[in-house]
Each structure stands twice: as C-alpha cells, then as structure tokens.
C-alpha cells in the first residue's frame, strides 16, 4: 500500500541522518514512538516530538530505555507501527526487550545510532561496534534483521524498509546508523506519498473462533491481530504453543525456536540487500557498510587507478548476512578487505562465509573517528602481498 500523505514531507531537504530517519519513520506510517535521550540519537526523537502532534502521532519520552523498548511493543499490540531510538548504552539496556519482541513476534523498529564504546565511551563520536550485538545481543536463539544506512538519504529510505520488513516478518528490525551518518547533513529527497510503498500489518481478518495467534503461514510468519477486537489473545515471553499458551517442554521449545530462527534464515534471499561495484573479476574485494563504505571509496579509487582490480561490496542489510553471495564472489578473489569502525565484527561473517581459505584482512580501529582512507588503501594493496 502507499504511504499516508498526511505524514509525508515531500520535497528536497538539507537535513542530517537523524532527522531523515525520523521522516522515514513518519513516511512508513509510524505513529507511536517511545524514546529516551541519548547522544547521538536524540535528534531523531526531538524531530518526532515536533512532528507528531499535528499528524496524529504519539511520542512519549519514557523514564528509561527499558521502558521505551517495551512501550513500543504495547503500542504494536494496540495496532500501531512503533519505533524507539537509542545509542550503545541504551541499546544494551534494550536487549531483553529485543528478545521479547522476537519471541512474541511483535513488529517494531529499533534505531541504534552507534557511538564509540564500550560503556559510556565517546558519546559524540562514531563507531560501528554494536554490529554483533545487533545479531546476538539478547539471550537465546532468534532471527533478526538489521539495515545499515550510509547517508541521510539512506537513513530515510532504509527506515521505511525496516518498518516494511518488520511487518512482513513479524520481527523487530534494527536500523544501525552511526554518529557520522546521523549527524551528517546532506540532501534528502522525500518523494510524494504515492511513490512510497509501505507494508501494512499482516492481519488475520477471520473470526476469533479457531484463530491461533502463532500458527504460521507458508513463509513461517503467523498473521497478527490486535487487542480490543475480541480475539482474547494471550502473548507471553514464555515458550509457547500455537495458541500462545506457555508450554514448558523441550518439544515445544524446539518447534518454536526452530521457526523463529528459520523465519529469517529461510527467507534470507528475499530479505538481504547489498550494493556491488565492479565485483566481476575483482582481485581484492572490499566489504563495508555504513559510513565506512563512503570512506573506502577514495581508497578503492586510488587502488584502481594503480591498476588493481578492486571490487566493492556494500552491506545494506547486515543481518541476515549475505553469506551465499559473498561465497559466490570469492571464486576468483585473492583477498577480502573489511574496514569497520570496531575491532573486527562483520569481518568474522565474511570469513565464515568463504568456501575456501581466502585471506580476509580486517581494517579495524577503536572508534571515535572514521578511517583514514590511506589505511584502507594500504590494506588493499598489502592484501595481495601474501
């Protein structure tokens, strides 16, 4: 379906990634945001607080991130598209509730504008250190989706995508921004509402009799209902059967967790998105995401000018990881170079995906700034020296 014109601020703007993310949420139909201030994400909720009252949205600054991350789930079960926004320390606090959303299959969006950690770290400076946490941060096994914008325009576009994926798969979706993209001001084009495709809530339209809240459709995703419509739903974080009732047995656990994991894993081909540049015949493949993908460009250009065949593979979805495509591309590649503003996180996924021993060179640092392109260039050149 098309976006609601009431919320869409059609036009061309000069705004930063945080602001663009807020507009993306509004365009996607989000009308409930619960958040807590934390640098460098605060501008997202500040803009939401300004925009919501006149477009029928409700923003509430909750008392902490734990409250925010579950208030959005209450709102989702009342039928709303809901989002919360945070950075590293808040992201850590939200982990239990990301697991709750995965377990109860509650569609909602979590935005993490990453800053240098661990702990309080460097609140105003960029990093990409939460990428593994995005996949594995909550206890237990579940599938999750994460997207990585590399510009304010993508902050707008991929936030819409995040909402759409969340509705499609009844799963929490993470928007992994970083402080640099979040605070970078660039041109953002917001199209007319009828050019924005949004995914509606997968609702069960039938009668309550015989309805099973957790009985999946063919793609492994169960249709949803909301409170107040007479379905007498029961939603619990305990291991549950198709009725939603807690059943404390290993057999039910296996059935449920198997489906939660495979809901994303088996639909990965439909979910993953990436951008490729000159990957055919590449000798060296740079795999990057977020702001680092832009910092890598001058390094790649320079190496190409010197005659090296360098491909650039950019993750749009970090999770699920495009394992199959990376493996495919590795056939003739002599080395992979993975620059990240962390001490090596997505590089492990690249290594894991490769079918044979191909050197994988991380370009890591502790965060607080973007890479110096020279370091990426150096890694590209040295990667071929065996």
């Amino acid at each position, binding site marked *: 379906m098309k976006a609601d014109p009431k919320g869409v601020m059609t036009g061309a703007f000069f705004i930063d990634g945080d602001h663009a993310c807020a507009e993306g949420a509004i365009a996607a139909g989000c009308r409930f945001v619960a958040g807590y201030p934390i640098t460098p994400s605060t501008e997202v909720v500040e803009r939401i607080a300004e925009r919501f009252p006149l477009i029928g949205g409700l923003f509430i600054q909750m008392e*902490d991130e734990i409250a925010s991350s579950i208030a959005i789930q209450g709102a989702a079960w009342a039928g709303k598209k809901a989002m919360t926004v945070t950075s590293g320390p808040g992201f850590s606090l939200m982990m*239990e509730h990301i697991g709750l959303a995965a377990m109860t299959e509650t569609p909602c969006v979590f935005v993490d504008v990453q800053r240098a950690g661990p702990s309080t770290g460097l609140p105003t400076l960029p990093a990409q250190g939460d990428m593994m946490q995005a996949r594995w941060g909550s206890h237990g096994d579940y599938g999750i989706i994460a997207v990585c914008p590399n510009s304010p325009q993508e902050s707008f576009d991929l936030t819409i995508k995040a909402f759409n994926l969340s509705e499609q798969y009844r799963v929490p979706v993470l928007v992994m921004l970083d402080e640099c993209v979040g605070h970078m001001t660039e041109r953002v084009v917001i199209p007319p509402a009828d050019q924005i495709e949004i995914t509606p809530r997968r609702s069960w339209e039938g009668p309550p009799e015989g309805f099973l809240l957790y009985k999946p459709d063919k793609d492994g995703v169960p249709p949803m209902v909301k409170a107040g419509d007479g379905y007498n739903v029961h939603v619990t974080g305990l291991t549950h059967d198709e009725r939603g009732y807690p059943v404390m047995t290993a057999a039910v656990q296996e059935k449920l967790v198997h489906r939660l994991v495979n809901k994303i894993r088996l639909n990965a081909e439909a979910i993953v998105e990436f951008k490729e540049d000159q990957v055919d015949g590449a000798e060296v493949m740079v795999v990057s995401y977020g702001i680092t993908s832009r910092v890598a460009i001058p390094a790649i250009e320079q190496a190409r000018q010197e005659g090296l065949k360098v491909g650039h593979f950019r993750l749009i979805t970090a999770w699920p990881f495009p394992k199959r495509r990376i493996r495919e591309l590795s056939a003739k590649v002599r080395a992979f170079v993975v620059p990240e503003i962390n001490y090596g996180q997505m590089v492990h996924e690249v290594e894991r995906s490769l079918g044979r021993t191909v050197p994988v060179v991380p370009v890591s640092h502790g965060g607080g700034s973007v890479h110096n392109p020279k370091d990426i260039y150096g890694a590209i050149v040295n990667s071929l020296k065996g």
Partner: protein
Amino acid sequence: MTEESMDVDVSMPTNTVEEYLRMERMPHIWCPGCGIGTTVNCFVHGLEASGLDLKKVAVVSGIGCTGRVAGYLKLDSFHTTHGRAIPFATGLKLANPELKVVVYSGDGDLVAIGGNHFIHAARRNVDMTVILINNFIYGMTGGQVAPTTPVGATASTAPYGNFEEAFNLPYLAESCGAVYVARWTAYHVRHAAKAIKDALLKKGFSFVEILAPCPTLYSRRNKLGDGLDQMKFYAAASEIQNDADTKTVGLSFQGKIVVGKFVDKDKPTYLDAMNTFYVQKFGDRYAPYKG
C-alpha cells in the same frame, strides 16, 4: 420457607468466574492456600460489576506468581518481562485509548525491578488500573526478600532476618500522584471486589494493593502457619480506616493492617493533559488525539 420451596427453581447455575477464565489451562500453578486465586475472583466480580466492554479490557502482567494471572484470564492478556508490565501497558493504552488496561502483578515485580515505571506512570496519571498482590516475598523464585518484606521476617536471601525498611505502598502510590489508592486483603473479598470495580471505573492511575498469603514460602519460613492461618490473621489484624493518611499505613511483621480506600480524587489523565495543552498551543490545527 418450606411453603415457598415448592415454587423454587433448584437448577444449578454455572460458576460465572469460569466464563472469565481459560478453563482449558486449569488447574493453575498456585499452591494450596495461596491467596492469588482469591484475588482473581475479586477481580472478576469487580470487572463484572463495572459493566465495562470485555473486548476492550486488556490485562498486562509481569513475572512472578501473580504474573501468571494474565495467562488464566480470558481477555486480551499480555505476560511481559519482569518489572515492565507498566510501560507495556502505557504503550497499549496510549496507542489505543479505548482500551481499559489493567496491570495485575506482584510486589517484587511492580515495585522492585518495576519501581521506576510505577512511579512515572503514577506521576503521569496514565489511565490504567494497577492491582498489586502483596505477599511480602518473591514467591516464584523460591522465597527471596522483597522491598515489601517487613523488618524481622526471614527470606531465602535474608536468612538471618530482613533489616531493610519495607515500602509503604499506599504512601508511595499517593506521593507519586495516583488518583485512587486502596488496600485490602484476600480476606476482604467483597471490599476488594468493590475497590477493583471503583478503580476500573476511575479515570487516571488507580492502585489497589491486596495482601495475600504465600503459605509455601513467606508463611512457612516465618512459622506463620498455612494460608488459612494468614487469612485469619488478616481478619483479626485488619482495621478499616477509609481516608486514612497514607503516611500512617505502613506494615510491620504481623502487625496491624490498615485497610480501606485512602485516596479518591480527580486529576486530568496523561492524554487529557496532552490534548488540553496542544489545543491551547495549536488551536484548530490540532485534532485531539484519540488513538
């Protein structure tokens, strides 16, 4: 009486409580002599008396023995994470103000781990009813000390006796802004049912504390007998003082229990305050938020 009895219909009606329960999940998990089931009867009676549209009633609970109530009620029910029923309920209510949202949880869940959320929801006067079953202990996990455990009582994590002061819950609720505050015990079934009815019909943050026995852990550890002994104690030690100053209704170990309706006042709810504010600010440009 015998003359009338010939004209009397002696067919047995069904137990109306069962209409509100997910009977396929019976028997429940609560111990013999546990008072939680008793409070569920009070809730059902209060809900029935309120006349509320059951389709619009949603129950949210946290983790613990009382938290299991949500799973047994045949209403839209949400069994959330430990301590976080109130913020979930806030999201549910603010996203659809037509819902009547009830938080039904235990003392540890609502005022220990959930303490921060309790005080803020009361401060905001979010329109919800919080039913707190106080058994002075963390029951589900085996009897640990709670912020409501009286000084001198023992618990598994206070094996030599608890020396921490306990919360005076009605005082806490009132001081944070709750518009309706009452305390009853599982013995006072009719009062509790009426309090729940009044709390459900009250606009704003309404709070009902109901003391209930935990025979397996609190009573047994503290040599207080079984559930019935605790209920008899409630009957003997309770004193009804409606409109008591909540500062004075703190509880001590096996001491006097002041019960009653302590606070019943009116204040704009969170959404009322929001809409009034924005109408003033934006005039006709603002459409009052209805969900």
